[in-house]
C-alpha cells in the first residue's frame, strides 16, 4: 500500500466504521417489508428483521465508539 496511507490518523478508522454500520442499517431498512416478512408465519413486529439488523449495528457502533 502507498506511503501516503500511513499518514491517515487513527480516528479515520472510527469514522469509516461508523459510516459503515450506519450504511448497513440504512440498506437493511431499504429492503421492502414484503421481502423481509416473506414466508414468515405472521406479521408480528418482532419478526421484522430490519429491526434486528438495526439493533446489531447500534451495538457495533457503541462498541467501536467505546474502544
Amino acid at each position, binding site marked *: 500500500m502507498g506511503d501516503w*496511507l500511513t499518514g*491517515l490518523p487513527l480516528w479515520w478508522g472510527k469514522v469509516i466504521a461508523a459510516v459503515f454500520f450506519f450504511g448497513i442499517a440504512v440498506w437493511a431498512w431499504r429492503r421492502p417489508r414484503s421481502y423481509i416478512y416473506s414466508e414468515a*408465519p405472521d406479521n408480528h413486529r418482532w419478526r421484522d*428483521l430490519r429491526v*434486528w*439488523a438495526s439493533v446489531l449495528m447500534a451495538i*457495533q457502533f457503541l*462498541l*467501536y465508539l467505546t474502544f
Partner: protein
Amino acid sequence: MTIGGIDLFIVVAYLVAIPIFGMYFRKYVKTEEDYFLAGRMLPWWVISMSIIGTNIGAYDYMGAAGGAYRFGIAQANYEWIGAIPAMVLSALLFVPYYWKAGVYTVPEFLGRRYNLAVRVIEALLWGAFLACVLGVFFWAAGLMLNEYLGIPIWVSLLVTAAIVGIYTITGGLAAVAMTDVVQLLVMFIGGVALTVLGLWTVGGWSGLVASITPTHPNHFNLFLPLDDPVIPWLGMILGLAFVLSPAWWCCHQAIIQRTLGARSEWDAKAGMLFAAFPKMFIPVLVVLPGLLALSLNPNLVGPDMDRAFPWLIRNLLPAGLAGLVFAAFMAALISSVDSTLNSAATVWTRDIYQRFFVKNASDRHYLNVGRVLTFVFVLWAIAFAPVTKQFPGIYVAMQSLLSVFQGPTFAITLLGIGWRRATQWGGLFGLLAGVAISSTLFFAAGWSFLYVAWWSFVGALVVTVVVSLLTRPEPTSKLEGLVYGLVMKDDEIQDVISRRAQGGE
C-alpha cells in the same frame, strides 16, 4: 496435564451423551434432502446456534486468546466488524436467493448462475479445502484428548472418529445441527465460567485494565495504527470487513448449508441474522481469556503466547470447572468437525459425483452415496491427521490459501446476485483473474492477506464487469430467481422460484 475425579466424569459424560443425542435424529433421514438439508425443516433458532457452533472451533480458543495476549482487544475485530455487518448482508441479500434456488451447495448456485466451469472450480476448491481441514481438526481433537485424558494419540483419533462419525453418518445435517445447539450451550457455560472467575481474580474489569495498560497501552484499542505489521486498522476495514468477512459469511459452504435446510425463507434469513447476537459475545469467551492470562502472567513469550488459554485452565480453575471448560473446548472442536464432515460429503456428492459420475439415479442411491462418502471422509481424516503433525503451520497455510480464493468468489457471487448483466464468461474470467491477482500478490509480492483479499476482490469485480459488458447478456429465463431485481418485481418469477424450491429443479 491430565484431569481426574469430577472433571473426568464431566468430560466422559459429555463425550458419551453427544453421539447418543445425535443418533436420535437418524429416524428422520429417508431421502437425500433429509440427509444433506435436514429435510428443509430447521427452525431459525437451531440454524443460528448451529452456525456459531460451526464457526467457532478449538483453534479460535487457542488462536484468539493468543492473539489477544499479543495485540489486545483488537483481536475482537474478527468477531465484530469482521463478522456482524457481513452476517446482516448475508441474511438479507444472499441467503434468500440460495434458499429459493433450491440448491444444496454454493458451487451449485454459481453453476446455475454462471456455467459449469465456475461450478467445478468452486466445488473442487471447497471439496479439497474441507477435506484437508478435517485432518487438521481431527489431529487437534486427538491431541486434546491425549493431553487431558492421557490416552494414546491413535486411540484419541479413533474416539474422535467414533463420537463424530456415528451421528454424522447416520443423522446427517439434522443430527449435526441439533448437537451443535447443545455444544454451543456447553461452550457458553464453560467460557463464561472461566471469564467470570478470571475477572473476579484480577479485580474486575477495572483491575484488568489497570494491570495491562501501563505496559501495553494499545491493548484496549480496537483499531491499531497503520504501521502495525499484523492487523493495521485500514487492512481490518478493507480486507476483513469489506471482503474476507462477507466472503466467509455469504459464500462458505459449511456456514450457508445450515440456512439451506431452513423450513422457510424467513427462517433462513432469521437464522443467519440471529446468529450475529451470540457471535457478538464470542470475544467474551475467546478474547477476554487472553487478556486475563496477560494480566495474571505477563511472562509468556513467542509461541507460548498461543498457550494463554491452556495456561488459564491449568492455573485458574478449580476441580469441576476445569472439566466443564475442557468440555466446552471439545464442544467447539466437535461442532466444527461434524459440520465440515457433512459439508464435504455434500459438495462431493452433489457437485462431483452426481454431476460427473452417476446422473439421474434414485434418491436412495444419493443418500447412500452421501453416507458412504461421510464414512470415507472419517477414514481420510484419521489417516491424514498425523500428516498435519509434520506441518505445524498447515492450518494457517490452508486459511491463507482460502483467502486467495475468497475475494474473487465473493466478487462473482455479489455480481451474480446483484447485477443481472453479469454473464457466464464474465463470472468465469473474473474468478480466474481474481485468483491470478491474489496468487501474485500473496506468493510473489508477499503482501498481507488482508490487502491481497481487497485487491483480488476489486480485480475480479472489474474483470467480471468488463468481460460481461463485452459478451452477450444471459437470457432472462436463465436468471429467474437467481438475480435480485428479477425476484422482486414479477409474480410469475415468484411461481418459478416456488416450483424450483419444491421440486429441486
